[in-house]
Structure formats: C-alpha cells, structure tokens
C-alpha cells in the first residue's frame, strides 16, 4: 500500500484536538459528477451536432480491480489524410468528481488516430469516448466498467 492507513498518531492527534475543544472537521466526500453532468459537458463540446455511435473503439477492461490506474485505449477508423482526419478525441466519465478525463488533439501527421493512457475511475460507471472529425462530425463509443476498488475511497483520509 502506498497510501498509509490512518495511523495511531493521527487518531491521537484528532482526539487531543477534541479534548482541547477544537472542532474536528468532518471529512466530506467531494461532490460527484452525474450522468447529467457528463451529458452537459458533452453538449458543450459538440454543440448542435449529432453524435453517432460508430467508428470509435474504446478499449477498457470490463472488470477492473484498482480504479487508480485503468488502462484505456481509444482508436478511431480514419484515413488520416489532410482532407479527412480525426481532429480530437475526448474521454468522459459519469461518476468521478469531474466529467472530463482527457482531450487529445491530432492532425494528419498523426498517421493513426489512436491514443492509449491510464485513467482514474472512482466507481462502476460508463466511460464515453468522443471523436471529432475534420468534417465537423462527432462519433462516440461507450463502455461500462466495473470497479472493485475505486480511486477515491482509500484516499479520503491521508
């Protein structure tokens, strides 16, 4: 474990504060994004355009043990020519504190519209990838990921 558990010293410290009449602040979980917040964020990106569920491949293991590092690969079918290429790939989530994860910007010099990275997921949720093409169209893919240990749970107290 790289995150230490609450130690005896910390418990004693909090106890001492209470004895001294100092209010020990209650740790509040951060507010979470909701599916609606994610939709709003996506709407901000695409505007009036319609998003079609095709062309994009979102590769995430369906069952993840540790939400702190979830391997995530997004690839889009595209010839990547100056006339027809992928301009950007965006990844969104439903339940993390914020709906955005990553935005990547490409040009025809990329050759292949693929990006692989590692992300944090706090809970079992849908992850959405959206690709923006040079002709202004938007394409997407969505995957439900089951998380057994979320990214934020063990980190609330450190």
């Amino acid at each position: 474990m790289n995150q230490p558990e609450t130690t005896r010293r910390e418990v004693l410290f909090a106890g001492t504060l209470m004895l001294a009449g100092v209010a020990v602040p209650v740790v509040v979980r951060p507010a979470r994004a909701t599916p609606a917040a994610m939709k709003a964020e996506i709407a901000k990106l695409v505007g009036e355009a319609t998003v079609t569920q095709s062309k994009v491949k979102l590769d995430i293991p369906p069952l993840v043990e540790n939400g702190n590092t979830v391997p995530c690969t997004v690839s889009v079918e595209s010839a990547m020519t100056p006339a027809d290429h992928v301009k950007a790939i965006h990844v969104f989530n439903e339940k993390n504190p914020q709906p955005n994860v990553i935005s990547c910007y490409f040009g025809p010099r990329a050759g292949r519209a693929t990006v692989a990275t590692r992300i944090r997921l706090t809970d079992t949720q849908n992850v959405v990838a959206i690709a923006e093409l040079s002709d202004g169209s938007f394409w997407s893919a969505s995957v439900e990921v089951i998380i057994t240990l979320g990214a934020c749970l063990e980190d609330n107290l450190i």
Partner: protein
Amino acid sequence: MTRALINVPAKARRGQIIAIKTLISHTMETGFRYTTTGERRPRNIIHTFVATYNGEEIFRAEFHPAMSANPFLTFHTVATESGTIAFRWTGDNGFSAIEQAKITVE
C-alpha cells in the same frame, strides 16, 4: 526531480507510422482529497502535454484530475524526416518538463 521515460524508435523508413510512448513521474494530486485534519489537498496536476516534430506540433493532450498518477501516453506519428521529437509537459504550480528524442529517417 522529474523523471520521464520516452520510447521513440531510433530509425524509421520515410512515411512509416511510428508509435511513441511517454511516461513521466508526477503525483497528479486531484484536488479532491483531504488530510486527516480536514483540509483539502490543493490540486497539483500536469494539465498540458505537447509533442513537436522538428518544431511542428504533432500531438497535444489536455489532462484532467481523472488521469492516473505518472501519466502515460501512447500515440503515433508519420516519420517524415530525420530530426528531433520534443515533448513538453506543463502543470500546476509552474511545473514544466522538457524531453527530446532523436530519430533517423531513411
């Protein structure tokens, strides 16, 4: 001390699509965690990554707190000419790191 690992093929044929892998050590503190005394730990993340090929931008990424610690990226580019591929990470609290790799195109 920032450590970054870069994987760029040393040689490539002209027009070949090459994969570039980058990894940089950074805690990527989300800004949503608290200390035992209830204070919020301030956000400290890398928010921008840019790759340039002989000075021309080939890839850019914007990171949000939902990126894992030690951000890892794999992306591609077309090997056009011999030269330098440079990488720049920019983050909160004035964080900045620059790395570069040489490539020979035949």
